[in-house]
């Protein structure tokens, strides 16, 4: 069972208290955008094997939305953070890099490796 800590009320809430809100950090393409951008915004979603960022709502609780970073393979939860942000906190990204070297997810990635997964030369 998935257990996420709500960053607003501090409850270690299990899945039945929460509602999944889909992928995190989507950038909206609305009126005036190209058809391709709009299509991608509406339909294209990540389906990673590994590190994933999601939106959750503490629906049977304080009712607030928040973000969670977790691993889809092991169900390990890296952390939760506020919904009022468009990027995950740096401390969380660093913690993920330590546990999953070379991870990438959309525009976010392990800062110590380049995007093709190779170690950056020191």
């Amino acid at each position, binding site marked *: 069972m998935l257990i996420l800590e709500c960053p607003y009320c501090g409850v270690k809430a299990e899945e039945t208290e929460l509602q999944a809100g889909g992928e995190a950090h989507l950038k909206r393409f609305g009126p005036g955008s190209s058809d391709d951008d709009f299509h991608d915004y509406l339909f294209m979603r990540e389906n990673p094997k590994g590190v994933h960022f999601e939106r959750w709502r503490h629906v049977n609780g*304080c009712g607030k939305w928040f973000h969670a970073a977790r691993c889809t393979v092991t169900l390990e939860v890296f952390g939760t953070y506020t919904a009022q942000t468009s990027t995950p906190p740096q401390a969380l990204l660093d913690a993920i890099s330590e546990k999953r070297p070379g991870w990438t997810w959309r525009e976010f990635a392990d800062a110590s490796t380049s995007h093709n997964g190779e170690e950056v030369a020191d």
Partner: protein
Amino acid sequence: MSNAVSVLNGASFDGLAEVKDAGLVGMITLRGDLSSKALAKAVLNVTDCTIPDVRKVAAVNGNTVAWMSPDELLIVTDYQNVDAMVAKLSSALAGEHALVVNVSDARSMLTLSGSGTREVLAKVAPVDFSAEQFQPGDFRRTRLAQVAGAFWLGEAEQMHIICFRSVGQYVFDLLKVAAHSDAVVGVYT
């Protein structure tokens, strides 16, 4: 005027714990910035309670103020007292970004007391009720089996349970089954 009655109209059940309708209870939803001094002052003047900590209640002189979310409080008071209190709070918060609403008739309240209180509620809510984890004055919004609910632990191990009026009967029936005298688990004894 119509004769106001609570949804369970005084029903009670005695088993592992006593489940009892708390009757008509006044409840006021207050939304606003909980860190605002004006809001804290208004709440203190009207209810004698300070703003409770996260997931706590503050109870003074028969009024209880519960922490519902980072921007919401629930004030529990006498049913007769509510309209006057809403008027006082609204005028005290005039000009503030806040909302005060009487929700008494949208809710229902039950009490759960007796030695099996923690065990009975633990069967229907995903909460750790061990004595170290859930102490008097602790408040929790969660679910009761399939519906939203909230509760706090008052004095003498009495649990005060709040749910929507529309599911009052459901919650009572649920607790009746959980408190059946043949349904002992013995986990918190």
